């Protein structure tokens, strides 16, 4: 029966696509692709400047497109890439997504400035040819070659585009692919440091293996949820949870595995093991990018999944997440105390902050959502600025991240010590900084949701964590500088801009947070 094989199938309808809504993502990916072509055709000496120009244009352009869309965005948000007959599309563009896009673009801009900086180290923080064998003579020569692997710029843009997709993904498959798009460039970028090649490569391998392990768990969770709900769309999972005949075991196992995958990316609690090593080994600008943007993306995704898909099952995951938040805060605060390396210390600080963020993410009220979004914004800026300052203090071997070499820094450079103190106070959550407002908002939302015990534990953890931030401050101001200590490099325009942006945002969000809080609470997720 050949006519059956040749039967003309019905024409499928074109999926509904709102290009204006997703334009920021498209611009970022487009700029990244053009960046690859620039790598192909430009001679070596032109690459750095054109890549910088292209990347900055891309991010600013995406920001303008975002602003233009926000000015007349439909109330309550939309979903796009919707197939005919479907109820929701693959990408949700709603207030939280727009807020997170704005946050990611701003943080991405600051990171990009730090990544592109060539003043601190001749040629920048990245190796000029990663394909060479490290440890050999050639690599040692490389440290003095002023080139730079300029592929880092398109990679950063791809990671940024992946993050923006991740926080807006409305089904678990798109989320999984976006997770990989944001992770793969980061695995690679972690291994491109100019100095301490072995350390950097190890960080890349560890990050990669553990990241792939975690995404396998995430994926198995997706499969189980698909088996439970018959769909991976977040809304349909929620609908199935409300009334499905299928066994709830699949649902619980699925939720557990998906959340574990997300917690890993957010470097929370017991799934944090990669964090200190990778933060320490990766080139400092990449660490800043990873610490700020990945955290925003991971928690943005987690907020959406918990609110849109798993809300009807919230009684099941509240207790485990409660425990995880406590464990994460405890690990961050206690192990942070014992660190001798500044980058590791900030890594443990980020684990503690991840615990606070879980407190916000599991509070499924409007205040919980807006306060967590605000916390992400504030924390991201502070962290980027912190890593910017860390990259300034250098000795002959590159960055001096050992705590002892920071002793008496205030006498060498009062300005840098002052800025760093301010940033550390923001991380600790002292009033007049954005950290205080963020913690205050999250804790009061959790309190209003009836989670008093958790808030008390979080306060204790903040107090313990404040101790190790203050230890650094005391070290900088009240001890004698070492005789052959590191020098504070005067940063070029790019790093200065990044640090200024981060510090100013920390200050502004600490004094007049209302505009950001209002924006964050302008609307919830698209159902």
């Amino acid at each position, binding site marked *: *029966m050949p006519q059956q*094989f040749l039967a*003309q199938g*019905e*024409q*499928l309808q074109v999926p509904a696509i709102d290009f204006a809504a997703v334009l920021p993502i498209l611009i970022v990916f487009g700029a990244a*692709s053009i960046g690859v*072509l620039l790598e*192909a055709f430009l001679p070596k000496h032109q690459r750095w400047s054109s890549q910088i120009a292209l990347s900055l244009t891309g991010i600013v352009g995406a920001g303008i497109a975002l602003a233009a869309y926000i000015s007349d965005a439909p109330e309550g948000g939309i979903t796009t890439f919707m197939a005919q007959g479907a109820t929701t599309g693959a990408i949700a563009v709603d207030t939280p997504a727009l807020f997170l896009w704005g946050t990611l673009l701003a943080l991405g801009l600051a990171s990009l400035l730090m990544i592109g900086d060539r003043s601190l180290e001749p040629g920048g923080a990245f190796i000029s040819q990663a*394909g060479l064998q490290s440890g050999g003579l050639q690599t040692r020569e490389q440290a003095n070659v002023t080139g730079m692997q300029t592929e880092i710029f398109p990679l950063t843009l791809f990671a940024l585009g992946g993050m923006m997709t991740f926080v807006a993904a409305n089904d678990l498959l798109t989320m999984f692919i976006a997770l990989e798009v944001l992770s793969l460039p980061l695995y690679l970028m972690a291994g491109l440091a100019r100095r301490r090649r072995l350390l950097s490569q190890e960080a890349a391998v560890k990050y990669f293996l553990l990241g792939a392990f975690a995404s396998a768990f995430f994926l198995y969770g997706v499969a189980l949820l698909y088996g439970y709900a018959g769909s991976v769309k977040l809304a349909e999972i929620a609908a199935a949870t409300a009334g499905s005949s299928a066994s709830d075991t699949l649902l619980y196992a699925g939720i557990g595995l998906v959340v574990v995958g997300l917690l890993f990316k957010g470097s929370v609690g017991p799934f944090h093991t990669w964090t200190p090593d990778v933060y320490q080994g990766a080139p400092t600008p990449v660490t800043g990018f990873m610490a700020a943007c990945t955290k925003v993306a991971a928690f943005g995704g987690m907020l959406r999944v918990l609110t849109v898909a798993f809300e009807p099952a919230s009684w099941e995951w509240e207790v485990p997440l409660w425990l995880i938040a406590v464990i994460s805060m405890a690990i961050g605060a206690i192990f942070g105390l014992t660190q001798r390396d500044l980058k590791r210390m900030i890594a443990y600080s980020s684990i503690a902050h991840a615990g606070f963020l879980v407190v916000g993410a599991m509070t499924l009220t409007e205040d919980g959502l807006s306060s967590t979004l605000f916390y992400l914004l504030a924390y991201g800026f502070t962290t980027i600025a912190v890593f910017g300052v860390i990259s300034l203090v250098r000795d002959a071997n590159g960055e001096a991240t050992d705590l002892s070499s920071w002793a008496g820094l205030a006498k060498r450079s009062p300005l840098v010590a002052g800025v760093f103190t301010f940033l550390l106070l923001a991380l600790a959550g002292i009033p007049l900084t954005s950290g205080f407002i963020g913690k205050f908002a999250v804790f009061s939302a959790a309190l209003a949701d009836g989670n008093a015990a958790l808030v008390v534990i979080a306060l204790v953890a903040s107090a313990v964590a404040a101790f190790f931030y203050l230890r650094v401050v005391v070290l900088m101001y009240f001890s004698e500088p070492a005789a052959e200590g590191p020098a504070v490099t005067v940063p070029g325009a790019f790093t200065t801009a990044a640090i200024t942006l981060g510090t100013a945002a920390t200050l502004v969000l600490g004094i007049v947070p209302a505009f950001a809080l209002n924006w964050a609470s302008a609307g919830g997720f698209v159902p």
Partner: protein
Amino acid sequence: MPDDIAASGGLDAYLPLVMLLALSFGFAVFSVAIAPLVGPKRFNKAKSEPYECGIEPSPQPVAGGGRIPVKFYLTGMLFILFDIEMVFLYPYAVAADAVGMFGFIAVTIFIVAITIPYVYEWARGGLEWD
């Protein structure tokens, strides 16, 4: 006929394929097994060489401290890349009349995007055989 295939789990359609596989497998085993039994054995040093024509294999084994010819990784990588492109084109080709012009545009964007790294590798000299 296709409906019957579906009803029977779709396995009957593979009977010829399975038979062909069995045949080819059997032939391979037979050829490998029979050769040492009936063939004459004449050894000399040249036959134990990797290349009997007399070329010395230049990169020494890794264990002996030789360098690793890493550039072939790029070839393998490109193979995977185009493998995936092909695997995406197949469903498109079968569904082409259903997805129409719109599907054509989508798949064109995809192909152009895949071509970008290829162009990049080519322009950088990654495909040169030095």
